[in-house]
């Protein structure tokens, strides 16, 4: 038996190694959707226990009507100064309430979630934290879950939870400061403003930029048609620590 072969052949198409696709198409207009926001950037209420910065797969409930002055960050993976100035830079709750009030979105989930994705235990996030958050959001009737990562590992943890939500039947998008990680980890939809780790949702105390990033990301949930799509957003903020 003979097979004609060659040495020196090279594969011609680069294939990233990604998890299997998950996808829930959005079936109603934004103005009728209930939105939840989750973050892996270590946001929690000041009265709650802080996260263990060495790695923590627990999560904290954040009521959507809480004043943002009662929120804070515990995260060792990036410079916290932007969030200390304005928590909306990672968890844009004030902007979400404005979008609800103006009718751009239908409503907000009563309870949203913060966790600290840095150094996150992949199995725990995949098997416990992700499904638990997804089940709670689904039970609240959430249609769209928007999330932010934080550092590199945070993006991984955020995407694990995001994928759990998508699997549970909600359409999700990650606002990614590190889009290559989001993509490699299998994020269903990715928006990518030019922002640093730590201000993933936009420049602190710049409501116009934060609103624009949120609105564009929500619109992308409507327009994106297939798994793994990524859109770079035209907003840029640099901070020098």
């Amino acid at each position, binding site marked *: 038996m*003979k097979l004609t*072969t060659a040495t020196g052949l090279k594969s011609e*198409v680069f294939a*990233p190694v990604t998890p299997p*696709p998950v996808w829930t198409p959005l079936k109603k207009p934004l103005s009728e959707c209930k939105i939840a926001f989750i973050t892996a950037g270590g946001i929690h209420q000041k009265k709650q226990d802080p996260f263990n910065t060495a790695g923590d797969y627990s999560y904290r409930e954040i009521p959507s009507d809480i004043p943002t002055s009662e929120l804070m960050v515990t995260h060792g993976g990036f410079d916290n100064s932007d969030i200390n100035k304005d928590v909306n830079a990672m968890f844009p709750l004030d902007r979400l309430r404005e979008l609800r009030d103006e009718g751009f979105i239908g409503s907000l989930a009563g309870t949203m979630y913060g966790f600290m994705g840095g150094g996150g235990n992949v199995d725990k996030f995949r098997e416990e934290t992700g499904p638990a958050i997804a089940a709670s959001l689904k039970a609240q009737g959430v249609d769209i879950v928007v999330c932010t990562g934080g*550092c*590199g*590992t945070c*993006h991984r943890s955020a995407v694990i939870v995001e994928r759990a939500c998508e699997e549970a039947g909600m359409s999700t998008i990650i606002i990614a400061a590190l889009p290559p990680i989001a993509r490699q980890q299998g994020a269903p939809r990715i928006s990518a403003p030019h922002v640093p780790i730590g201000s993933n949702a936009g420049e602190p105390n710049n409501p116009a930029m934060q609103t624009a990033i949120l609105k564009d990301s929500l619109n992308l949930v409507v327009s994106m048609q*297939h798994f793994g799509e990524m859109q770079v957003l035209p907003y840029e903020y640099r901070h020098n620590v």
Partner: protein
Amino acid sequence: MSMSKEKAMAYLNEPAVLCCQRGKGTVISEADLEDPTIFADLQDSGLLSIPDGSLTVGDVLGMTLNADVEALTALRPSMLEGGAAKPAPSAAAGGAAPGSVTACGAAAPAAPAPATPGFGAAAGTAHFDAPPALPGGPVTIHVDSLQGLDISFPAGWPALYGLCGAVPGAEAPVAAASGTAAGGAASVPGASGAAGFSAASALGASGAAGFSAAAALGAAAGLAAHTAPAANPLTHKYYSVQNVKLGKKTSFSSGTLTIDSALTEKALSSSPLVKQVEMDIITPEKRHIFTNTIMDIMPVAVKCSGKTGEGTTAILDRVVFCLTGLDEKGVQIHEFGSCEGYLDEKAAFGRPGAPDDDDIIVRVNVTIQENTGMERRGPLAAHTACDVIVQSIRDVLKATDEAPAFTKTYHDTRRRGLPRVCLVKEIMGQGAMHDNILLPNEPAGVIGGQKNVDLGNVPVMLTPNEVLDGGIHALTCIGPATKETTRHYFREPLVHALAADEEIDFIGVIFVGSPQVNDEKMYVTERLGSWIGSLDLDGAIVTTEGFGNNHIDFAGHIAAIGGRNVPVVGVTFSAYQGQLVVGNEYMDAMIEINKDAGGFENEVLACSSICPEDASRAQLMLKTKMAGIPIAPAERKWSQAVIDGNQWLADQA
């Protein structure tokens, strides 16, 4: 994003980059370091730069930071305690020295390292027991799994032994560009790299690839594999056409095809959605003519005897039908991108799915009800209307007394005992209008066929001859450059190449759809996997047209095959615009079919579809992979130079 311990061990020689901000005094572990597989993307995004003099993963594991360091910083000696000088490699990571070739050499200094496939020198942790350096010593063959092994001794035994590269003086039967089959991993004492392959090859040993060892041994002993043509071959009778004109009655005589111009009225009545049908003739010298988007290119063929794929088919030579369409509002219909414009600029003449330079084109332009151009029923009505006209010609052709200009006969030869190969062709199945009609009553026709979408996109097996006999009518509504028209299937180069390949047993062509719903995608992929598992395949090629969401199915199909230890090659348009958003470890042998200079879907009909050159590369790459010879990983960005290099090898073969 941090790494696992296993991953860090595999990337000891890659640059060490902090995944997150880390404080002074941190003892660096794999959890602090970014995954090197995404460095290129991070660098492209401007998020990372790796200056010269940066340390490697192996250098920094266990070292201590002497200052706070930001995320995505490549570590340098000045950032580490006592780290002004780069540590010696031998100090790294628990003694697992990067690059184990040296270690192997030290363990067995007298033995030239057998170049077994898969031993990457850079792997760092690879090790194996060096065999004794005895020429003619034991041949060790490792097989991961094995199916259907039949070994008959002793007839071929001396010849077999003589083929082993381990025997002093024996000639290794492998040249650089031609070898024999191998699978699994073999190590042969004292053998050179090439002989290492050939020894395993000569034994025909393969668990994963599943070659029949009986066949291999038989071949070594001078026995032939069992070759069996199909009971009913397919004969294509080609009738030469010199002239096509419109007239009052459809006829074919002395090389002149006359088409009844009133057939457009008959076509008009085929569906209430069809509002207008026009027909004209475009001869080769009149190509600079405006055309609406080209929905399909079709041959004119009719069964004279037998079913699709066997018996006799009459075909008009140098004539094709070209279906174009609009809706009542003047909107180009059914395309993801469209190719309206001047015909000579909007079609890649000569591609399997396009008209040839010297073809006479019968153009049928159908206007359908407004706003149905992107619904399933609209394009289907247009194809059905066109088929009414073609059918009238088929009826005349079937009854013709003219003599065929030439004939071609296809035998669907099965070469039992040789490696079993199948072709998987992914077809569209999204939104219903992206449909294909399987096995219509007449070759490349519409009536009587089953719609892929109605079948649930599940895999359907056709014989090679059924494909080449017009078993697929394409409604495909994807981009013009990357779609496979009805004529493409009629002339599919991979089917021709694999059917003619005397080194394999080409068992057939599986058509599988690309569903719209994600859950259905999984279902279809699993059904394909079950087929593949049951077919005892030794190799498969998967093709897809278009790009984007169907790449999810494409990746799934390749994983379903590769995951069953069947060597698989993927064929797709990717280039710049169609870069894959999903992938898996089985997509390591891929063929790019882009022909656009910029790597875009350029809206030139059939430009970036599979042509014979692509088929030759896919065929060679598959057989090379089946033989266990490594295929180098793809570069991260589309590179025409890689394609050209592979093409050169394929041309030599």
